[in-house]
C-alpha cells in the first residue's frame, strides 16, 4: 500500500474524512435552507419592530436575534444528529464503512465533528447576518435622530443606540450558545445509539432540553432541602442528578443589557460544557461499541 505512517495521524485523517463527509451530507441535504428562516425572522422583525415606540426597537431586535440563535442552533444540531446513525444503519452504509479499517470510536467522532462543523458555521453565519441587520438599523436610527435632535443631545442618544446593537462583548455569550447546541447534539447522538427509532431520539432529546432548563430550579430546591414529601424529594434529586443545567449557558441576555461576563466565568462555563460533551460522547461510544449491527 502506501508509505508507512504513524497510526495517530492515519486515525485523525480517517476522522476528518468522516467529519467532512458528514458535513457534506448535511450541506447537500440542504439544511442550510433552515437558516433562511432565521434570515426571514431577523429581517422581518427588523421591519416590524420599527413600530414599537414603547420599547427601544433595536433592543427588541437584538433579543429576537439572540433568542432565535439559541433556538435555531439547538434545533439544527438536534435534527441533524438524530438521523445520522439510523440512516447509516438503515442504508447499510455503516457496514461498508466499518468493514474498512475504521474503528467505531473514529466513526462516532467523525459524525459528531461533522455536526459541530455545521453548527459552528451556522452560528457564524447567523451572527454575521444578525450583526449586519443591526448595523443597518443602527445607521437608520442615528440618521433619524440626527434629523430630530439638537446637536447638544445627539451624542448621548447615539451612545444609547450604539449600546443596543451587536457588540463584541456578546461574542462569549454567542460561543456559549454554540456550546449548548453542541452539548445537545452530543446528547442526541448518545440517545440515537440507544434508540431504535429517530422519533424516540428527537422526542427524548426535546424533553431533556426542556427539563434541562428547569433543572436549576429543582436542584436549588433540593439542595436547599425544603419540606417536600419524600417521594417528591427523590424525584427532584433524580432530576438534578440526571439532567444537565442548560440555563447556565444562557448568559447572553444579561450581557445584552450591559452585564460584564468575567473571563474566568466564561472559561468555567465553557469547561463545564466541554466536560458534558466528553461524558456524553464517551457514553455514546460505550453503547455503540457493544451494539450489534
Amino acid at each position, binding site marked *: 500500500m502506501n508509505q508507512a505512517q504513524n497510526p495517530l495521524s492515519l486515525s485523525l485523517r480517517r476522522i476528518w474524512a468522516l467529519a467532512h463527509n458528514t458535513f457534506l451530507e448535511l450541506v447537500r441535504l440542504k439544511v442550510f435552507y433552515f437558516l433562511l428562516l432565521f434570515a426571514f425572522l431577523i429581517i422581518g422583525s427588523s421591519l416590524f419592530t420599527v413600530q414599537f415606540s*414603547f*420599547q427601544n426597537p433595536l433592543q427588541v431586535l437584538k433579543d429576537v436575534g439572540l433568542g432565535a440563535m439559541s433556538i435555531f442552533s439547538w434545533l439544527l444540531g438536534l435534527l441533524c444528529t438524530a438521523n445520522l446513525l439510523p440512516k447509516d444503519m438503515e442504508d447499510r452504509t455503516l457496514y461498508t464503512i466499518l468493514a474498512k479499517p475504521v474503528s467505531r470510536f473514529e466513526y462516532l467522532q467523525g459524525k459528531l465533528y461533522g455536526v459541530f462543523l455545521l453548527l459552528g458555521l451556522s452560528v457564524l453565519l447567523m451572527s454575521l447576518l444578525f450583526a449586519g441587520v443591526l448595523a443597518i438599523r443602527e445607521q437608520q436610527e442615528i440618521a433619524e435622530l440626527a434629523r430630530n435632535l439638537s446637536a447638544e443631545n445627539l451624542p448621548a442618544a447615539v451612545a444609547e443606540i450604539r449600546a443596543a446593537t451587536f457588540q463584541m462583548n456578546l461574542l462569549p455569550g454567542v460561543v456559549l450558545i454554540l456550546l449548548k447546541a453542541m452539548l445537545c447534539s452530543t446528547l442526541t447522538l448518545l440517545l440515537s445509539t440507544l434508540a431504535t427509532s429517530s422519533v424516540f431520539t428527537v422526542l427524548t432529546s426535546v424533553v431533556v*432540553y426542556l427539563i434541562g432548563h*428547569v433543572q436549576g430550579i429543582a436542584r436549588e430546591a433540593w439542595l436547599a432541602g425544603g419540606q417536600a414529601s419524600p417521594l417528591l424529594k427523590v424525584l427532584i434529586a433524580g432530576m438534578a442528578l440526571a439532567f*444537565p*443545567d442548560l440555563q447556565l449557558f*444562557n*448568559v447572553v441576555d444579561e450581557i445584552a443589557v450591559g*452585564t460584564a461576563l468575567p473571563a474566568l*466565568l466564561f472559561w468555567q462555563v465553557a469547561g463545564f460544557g466541554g466536560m458534558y460533551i466528553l461524558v456524553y460522547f464517551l457514553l455514546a461510544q460505550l453503547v455503540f461499541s457493544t451494539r450489534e449491527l
Partner: protein
Amino acid sequence: MRKALCILGLLAGFGCLKTAAEHYLLTVQRSAGFQLATLSGQTRTQLGQTGFVAALSGFRALMADLLWIRAGSAFDRTEWPRMQMLLHAATQLQPRAVVFWEMAHFHMAYDASHSMRLNVRQQPAAALRRVAELEYVQIGEDFLKAGLVFNPESATLWQRLGELYSRRRDDPARASAAYAEAARKPGALGFLRRMAAYELAKVPGKDREAYEQLRSLYLEGEPQRLPNLVRLLRQLEEKLAVPEAERVYTTPSAPSGTPASR
C-alpha cells in the same frame, strides 16, 4: 449485570460531581449578575404557558420585551393596575436591565400617580385622590428598591431614588442620602454630589454638614462654582455666622463667573 451496576454507579458519581459544579457555577454567575431572573407565579401567569416555556429556553429577554410592549398598550389605555403587573413581570424576567426598572418606576411614581391626582371624575374626594396618588408613588419607590437589589451599583437607579424622595415625597434627608449613594457609584454624573448637598441643606438641623459639603465642593474649583451652589453657600455662611476670615465667599462684588458646564 455487574457491568451495568458499575456503569450506573459511575453515572451516579458523575451526577453528584456535576450537580456540585452546577451549584458552584450558579453561585458564581449570580454574584456576577447572571441568572437572577425569577419566574414566580405572577410572572408565569403573565407569560402564559407558551411564553413560560419560551422564556425558559432562550427567549427570556424577548418575552420581557413583549411584556414590556404590552405594558405600553396598557399605558395608552391608562390601565394602571394592569400596567403595574406587566411591568413587574418584565422586570422579573430581565432584572439586569436598568432601563426597565427606571422606566417602570417613572410610569408608576409620576404618570400613574399624577393621573390619580387628576382623576376627578371617578374620585371626587380630594383626600382619597391623594391617597391613591401616594400609593402609586410607593409602587414606583418599590420598583426602584427592587431594581437596586439586582443592580446595586447602578448610579442611575440611586439618582432616580433621590429624585423621587425630593420631588414626590418632600423628604430631603432621604433624597440627599440617595444622591450621595449615587455619586459613589461607577459612572456617576458630576452633579450628583451637588444634588446631595443641596438636599441636605433643606434638612432642618443639618446646616453645618451641608455647609461643609458645599464648601469642599466650592474649593474643588471653577466647575463646581455654579450660581446655585454659590447662593446656598452664602446663605449658610450667613445663617451659621461663619467668621469673615473663614468664608470662602468674601467679596460679594467679585465676579462669580458663569461657569461653562451645566
